[in-house]
């Protein structure tokens, strides 16, 4: 094609590209606008107190965060989710058999969270427990760890 036709085509293409980009960027901006930057919910990562606050033996149940905090004399801290993997009911932990029982549909989880009985499809999650810089225990629900994970303090 000759030069004139080439430039005509280029400008046209540039124009069309501009419109398409403007539309695409607008759409992307709207989508990003709709994604919240802050959540009015309890945070996923939170401090639960000093290690000394937690007794050995039966786990401490944190009501709002729905977490069991275990403290093993030899091995240290671990934190298990108290939310049943079936439909979300809160499980109970019994000292007598060291297992988690869900009242809703009868699921039973072993001491390490694996499913032993009932309709639950997955094991209970264990969350990362670390020590924050001010010496408090920090649980991060975004970080799932294997059941053998312990924090030795």
């Amino acid at each position, binding site marked *: 094609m000759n030069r004139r036709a080439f430039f005509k085509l280029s400008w046209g293409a540039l*124009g069309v590209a501009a419109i398409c980009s*403007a539309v695409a*960027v607008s759409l992307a901006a709207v989508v990003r606008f709709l994604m919240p930057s802050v959540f009015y919910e*309890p945070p996923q990562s939170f401090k639960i107190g*000093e290690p000394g*606050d937690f007794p050995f033996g039966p786990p401490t149940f944190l009501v709002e965060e729905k977490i069991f905090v275990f403290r093993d004399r030899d091995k240290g801290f671990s934190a298990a989710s108290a939310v049943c993997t079936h439909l979300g009911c809160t499980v109970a932990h019994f000292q007598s058999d060291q297992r988690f029982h869900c009242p809703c549909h009868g699921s039973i989880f072993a001491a390490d969270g694996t499913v032993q009985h009932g309709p639950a499809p997955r094991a209970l999650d264990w969350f990362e427990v670390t020590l*924050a810089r*001010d010496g408090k225990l920090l649980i991060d629900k975004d970080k799932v760890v294997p059941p053998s994970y312990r924090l030795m303090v």
Partner: protein
Amino acid sequence: MERKLQQIFFALSLIALTLILAAAWQANTPSWKTYQKNFLQLEAQGEPNAVTKAAVLATPPQIHQVMLTGLQRVDRCTTCHLGVEDPTMKNAPEPFRYHAGLGPHIPSRFGCTICHGGQGLATDKDNAHGKVEFWQSPLLSQEYIRASCGRCHKEGDVPDVPELAEGRRLFETQGCRGCHKLNGVGGSIGPDLTEEGANHRSPEWLERHFLAPNAVSAGSAMPNFHFTRDQARDLTYYMLSLTNEEMGSYFSSMRSIPGPAYGRQLFIEKNCIACHAVGGVGAKIGPDLLGVTKRHSMEWLDEQLVNPELVYPGSSMPEYDLETNARKAIVAFLSAATPDDLRLIQSGKPRAQSVEEVAIEAGKQDFARFGCVGCHGTELQGGVANPNAQGGEVPSLLHVSDDYTKDEVIAIIRNGRVPPMDNAAGPPPPLYMPSWKHVLSDEDINRIADYLWSKQQQKKDSW
């Protein structure tokens, strides 16, 4: 013409695209992201090896907020003030520095604006510090921050803030209530001060006003009380603490936060000095308690008082049957206890009154605090109308010892009582004595009974 129009259209599209990109870029580069990046670099320096360094530096930028739903506050200060709970950041430059001396008042639980003021919802420096038009509570200057303690700690002595108690005392003794209402009691000549702290007046204005009312409020009828600078400061602190937010009840149970004075009394009562010392003064059987609240959390200390064996197996500390408020009071006392306090206790010259007087005073406080005066009167005179009750009104308690034993009165307070009706066929009386056993502890009820007994008039004799 048409060709030109097409070109104009495309050119405008380019401009529109540029503008959207500019807006998106602006939205994507807020100042807090820069602060967070700088903080991560600072943090990474403290990391031992390259892997953890990289992990820290890779943390995605995020707005941090503390939600205090009961107070309808949201504080986003920790988005930039990232080191505020991190003791290793003691020497970091602001805004990353560690905030020492907070005790239980950590930002993740209390937010920041309750004490400091400012605009918690904002995420850039000027707006967050509240130094903008249309935000009326900017950051309090260093001199006045401690006044904020009084917004929750409304009674008794507040550790480290003697100005509050002194300001309150001045208010009550200098006749301020003659012209100003406070909590519904007082005159109507001046403005109601119940929520003066929420009126967004600058502390400097308040102080100047106390020193020379007419110079600050032209034409004011308020006389010049010739306060000293310190007195004006104390009164200003007190005013600043008068906010309408129910922060006390948000952070603790319905009972008000007990003061250290009561804790001191318990310390004596339970004879803690038999095993413990503060700063070397006392016994050496148990650990020294100087600064114990800085070493341990409130929860830990509380548990220690409930069940010492659980925390230190084999401990010889007895299990005291104390309830929540008593334990809080002891811990409050320990947070400010000095060796001198213990010397005074040792020498048997307590600053407070005798055990009985303290109990009666505590009973009187409870009687007022829990609203008994609403029906039974500030002087126990009764008299509030209660139609179709026998006697037609709430009874006076000044002669209750004539008709009941102390144990019977205690039982009535615990279990409540419906007044007998005058006319059985008529409507039931609207007022009745509620049951308090689930609200008040046995000790509280006993102290109220002590207070009542101390007020009994010897009617029999005067017949």
